[in-house]
């Protein structure tokens, strides 16, 4: 009896733990299945109908590869990738720089008009993006920025969300840290550059990731701004494939879609910890 009591207790199998695991796994299937399915459609024996064939596992590696080759070579997909990547990277860099500078001020200093300015920016979080789409488009057109990278990127840089998030975060930078730097002789900009920025790394990474997801998936803005094929983004090229009149079969359509999903998926796999924790911290603090 003694020896039994001394054994380290194994996690016992109770009805509750069975239910817990079953539920968790079922939901995991629901969450991941659609993407798995898309993957399987791409990597399936050619000519097999998708209908009547649930595609639970990939059946042909080579046809997937040839689908991918086809999409990459026969269309402007690669160029669109390049545009999308540039668009995304520039947007991320711009958003981080511009909103961190503003957040630095809003979070850590007092100056006349601060509350009003901040309130206005925050109010903008509630304005539906569609309400500004058309006037913004007209402005960009008037500036002659259609079909240009700056036309694609600049309007997305003043991210109220990013400002909000970074401000929240920077508020937690200890005032003493800045004072120490002031005593060390740092100028205003040096405070930002040497202290505030490095200390906000987590928040910056989170914002970068969120911006990535939003920019990569952005559909409507590129649609109106980049009208020339050499400025098409991935979302536009994919929508060509998705269009009812496109001359393509399901596997090719799904290939185009899958390729569009690859960067975010890879990004997620690499950074999942930070993404999830970053979002968590913004949400639970906001």
């Amino acid at each position, binding site marked *: 009896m003694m020896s039994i009591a001394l054994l380290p207790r194994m996690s016992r199998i109770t009805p509750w733990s069975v239910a817990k695991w079953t539920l968790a796994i079922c939901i995991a299937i629901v969450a991941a299945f659609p993407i798995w399915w898309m993957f399987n459609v791409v990597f399936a024996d050619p*000519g*097999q*109908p*998708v*209908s009547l064939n649930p595609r639970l596992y990939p059946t042909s590696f080579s046809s997937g590869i040839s689908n991918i080759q086809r999409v990459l070579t026969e269309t402007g997909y690669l160029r669109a990738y390049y545009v999308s990547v540039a668009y995304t990277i520039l947007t991320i860099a711009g958003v981080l720089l511009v909103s961190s500078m503003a957040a630095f001020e809003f979070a850590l200093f007092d100056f006349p008009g601060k509350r009003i300015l901040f309130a206005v920016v925050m109010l903008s979080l509630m304005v539906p993006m569609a309400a500004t789409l058309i006037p913004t488009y007209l402005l960009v057109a008037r500036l002659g920025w259609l*079909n240009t990278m700056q036309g694609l990127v600049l309007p997305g840089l003043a991210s109220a969300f990013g400002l909000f998030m970074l401000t929240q975060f920077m508020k937690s930078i200890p005032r003493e840290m800045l004072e120490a730097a002031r005593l060390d002789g740092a100028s205003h900009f040096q405070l930002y550059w040497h202290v505030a920025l490095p200390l906000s790394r987590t928040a910056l990474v989170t914002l970068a990731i969120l911006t990535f997801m939003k920019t990569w998936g952005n559909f409507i803005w590129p649609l*109106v701004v980049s009208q020339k094929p050499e400025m098409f983004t991935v979302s536009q090229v994919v929508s060509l494939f998705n269009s009812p009149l*496109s*001359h393509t079969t399901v596997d090719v*359509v799904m290939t185009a879609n899958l390729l569009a999903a690859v960067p975010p998926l890879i990004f997620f796999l690499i950074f999942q910890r930070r993404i999830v924790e970053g979002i968590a911290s913004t949400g639970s603090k906001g």
Partner: protein
Amino acid sequence: QELDYWVYSDFAQGEALELQQSFIDEFKAEHPEVEITISGRGDDDLLTGQIAGAASGTGPDVFMNSTSLGAILVEAGALKNIYEDWMAMPEEFRKQFNPDLIDMCSPEPEVMYCLPYTGYGSFMYRNLAVLKEAGIDPDAPIRDWEDWKAQMEKIEAIGKKAVPDMSQTWFSVANAYSGVAEPGEWGIDFENDKTLIEPDKLAAAAQLLVDMKPYSTGTSEDDQATKDLFMSNELAFIVGGPWINPIFEQAAENGDLEYDWVLVPGAEEGKHGGVKGFEFIGVAPKENAGISWLFAAYVAEKSQMSRWAAALGRYNSNDEALADPEVSGHPLLKITNDAAKNAIFNRPPFFVEAYPADYWSVLLDGIASIVEGDETPDEGAARIVEELDEVIAYN
């Protein structure tokens, strides 16, 4: 000079793109100072881009679109009046084109908004494997709707589907309706603010849609799923335009599909349904409209259009090109041609006035409520026509 040339996305893929690109190259050989970029777009993007482009003065220079959207584009100021350029062209150029279509582009005297370009007529693709499996002889023509429905029943009996859900898009509704109606009984009479749709004929078409419901896949003819079903021998019939053919052709080459095409069955023997439409090529009212016009005229010209038709079997509005013996033998072109003979126009009249935005949704919602069983076809059709008149009047 740089010209942006926008086309439907299927024109900017595969073989069609090669051909378009060679037109461009040839044109550039004659006019070395121009750069021409072709870009393909979905129907929706095409319209949005043109309108947005017109609003901001940055749209494409040369573009195609459906004649059915002409009036909107005219309103948007996206189309240049090319009457003078047209008249400046030599007589032999002008007489290549189908005169009816030229009229269509010219709603008023001395006004001409476009050059007729390509076109289509709708017909019915048949999956022969399914038919054979259902014990239907593909060589026997489908006499009428009753015969058609009888075939559907047989197909249903072997657990396959006969048709896509034809009540979902105006295009397929029009295809059904055209089986009873005459070309003049579709569209809007803008002078009297009345729809031209005949209530009893609409009711008959609606009845057909109701009858077809049990045999349908539930997907619309535009859905990729529909084509997938057809290619995987689950679906027997698709009514559609020639643009669907390339993927079927591809599948047939791979040996996965055996199919043919026939005219859309009509309500009675001898009557056939079908919708036809045309695309035009237009020029934006911008500085380089001059060279744009030349380019538009070039691609619409006989030698280009005959190559187009020969290679793709696609219909166009250049009568001389279609008459070219090398072309007329193309089977796809032949069926399109046949279909076009008794088909109704897609959204007539063109370039006159834009359709009220609610028009199509009233029609489709009404059909939907009949098919869902909320109304009888007769009641529903009468109500639809009434409502359509209201919508037109309100506009």
